[in-house]
């Protein structure tokens, strides 16, 4: 299988050249195959979120080469990173990052707005996803009025709305109870079967030990290690 994500010698330094300089990633070499489901594991501060942000085209590495979905994105300016991100990446965040005052449907279709997708198509695409994730009856509710489990599905729907090949989730179950965490992994497993590439970060046993996870990648102080 061809590698969808290829990192070689990737470094990420925050606040370079300043007193509060942090070397968050040091010489990362990593390949992730298309259609695989992997989990990044490591203690707090080991650089999981930073690595995920580079794979997710949020910022480029400070040095080294990163190719995501066939695109070299080392040193790409912000604008092009964003273009690439919205075409290839669906992000699910630990705290969901939904806008509480927006309706469920508007939250889900937020990524489609700058793409110029018209209101009718936005509604139809959202309706299909909401149906599939079982939140169709909540479409018109403001996000602040729905339950944690429903919020999680809204976050997933938003990540999927533009049908990206890569799904990233940063500690998605940190704020969920056992049942909701299981439900989340259930959906991830399904997406994986649909052919999506899925990358999670977690130190939750429930995720790292989940049967759907094909590969564990250990991080320690900004470097890879075999767990």
């Amino acid at each position, binding site marked *: 299988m061809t590698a969808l994500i290829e990192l070689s010698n990737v470094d990420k330094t925050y606040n370079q050249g300043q007193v509060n300089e942090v070397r968050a990633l040091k010489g990362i070499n990593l390949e992730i195959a298309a259609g695989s489901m992997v989990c990044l594991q490591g203690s707090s501060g080991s650089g999981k979120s930073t690595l995920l942000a580079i794979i997710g085209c949020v910022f480029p590495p400070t040095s080294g080469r990163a190719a995501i979905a066939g695109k070299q994105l080392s040193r790409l300016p912000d604008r092009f990173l964003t273009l690439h991100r919205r075409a290839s990446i669906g992000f699910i965040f630990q705290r969901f*990052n939904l806008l509480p005052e927006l309706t469920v449907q508007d939250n889900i279709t937020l990524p489609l707005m700058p793409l*110029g997708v018209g209101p009718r198509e936005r509604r139809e695409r959202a309706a299909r996803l909401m149906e599939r994730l079982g939140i169709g009856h909540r479409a018109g509710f403001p996000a602040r009025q729905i339950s944690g489990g429903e919020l999680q599905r809204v976050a997933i729907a938003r990540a999927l709305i533009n049908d990206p090949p890569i799904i990233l989730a940063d500690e998605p179950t940190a704020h969920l109870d056992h049942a909701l965490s299981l439900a989340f992994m259930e959906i991830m497993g399904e997406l994986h079967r649909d052919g999506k590439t899925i990358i999670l970060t977690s130190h939750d046993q429930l995720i790292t030990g989940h049967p759907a996870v094909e590969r564990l990648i250990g991080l320690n102080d900004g470097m890879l290690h075999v767990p």
Partner: protein
Amino acid sequence: MNGLSRQLNVIDYSLSSLWRRRFKSVSVMVVFAAVIFLLASFQMTTKALTQTASRLLVMAPEITIQKMRAGRQEPIPVAYREKLAGIFGIRRITPRVWGYYFNETHAANLTVIGVDPRLMPLGEKLAAAIDTGRLPGDHEVVLGQGAEELLGENRMISLFRPDLSLKPLTVVGRFRPATDLLTYDTLFLPPDDARDLFSLPPELATDLCVTVANPSEVDTIAKKIAALLPGTRVLTRSQIEKTYHAVFGWRSGFASVCLLTALTSFIIFAWDKASGLTPEERREIGILKIVGWQTADVILLRFWEGVIVALLSFVAGYTLAYIHVAFFDAGLFRPIMLGWSVLHPRLRLSPGVEVGDVLLVLCLTVVPYLAATVVPAWRAAIIRADSALN
């Protein structure tokens, strides 16, 4: 990628986000509309007044001669006319008798003007200023609207002479509202009746009006008159006009300074609102960025929010200003613009709305407002996408 539908989506989002923050939006709009209202009313009032005034100044005599003693005006002998007979270029000299009549019932001053309309420089214009009726003959009077309202719409009126005896007059006409700036509080009657009312002897008048054959000679003739008649003050129409403009200009200048201060403080307030981001707003922008909004999209969002707020306020403020000036005769500005006379001339102001004027107010309000809201939006828009990660 379709640029137009992206634009429409951003507008769509701006509208819904203004609606979500409707109390904040409405409060900004109310303040902004009030500023625009003041500015536009002021502009329309000034314009309408200047137009009315310059229309009326045309009717002022080219040269007025007043007799002065100890720095005060006093009645001028009609016989002075003969002294000026030698000046070449004078067409006619008309004595005027005028003064103020205090109406005790209403504690208001009325202006009494006594001129023989046949001798008036612009007699035909005066006749045209009469709305209903005709020019007054002996023991007859034409009233301005305000005077008529005070004295009642009677056919006969009686006024007190200085010795408190009554002088009856027949009302034969009324001045047109459009000339109200000058005629509103006016009683117009033949000079002999005015003399009778003020107990002025027949050989005296209040002042003399000089009509000149060639307008370009007005200044020369005025100088000659002043030389021939020591102890008089000779005023030309352009001098009156200048004085008027100076006074009016000072008043409107003062008012515009006040208005610009209000505008400036509003712009600062808008800047403040736009640049001070609440944590929720920062979070919202971080989320928009990470789900794929570009910096330009966020700035566009702020821009459209600004445009919507500014245009709604502008339309509301301008419309209210028009209503204020056209239907309420600019009641708020009257004291500043016209000064306090006991009897306020209740002008019919007819504000003509011209594209240039609208654009001027637009440039003075909407453009700085947009600058004040969009420029700080840069700061908001460059919030990094990864701020939404933690």
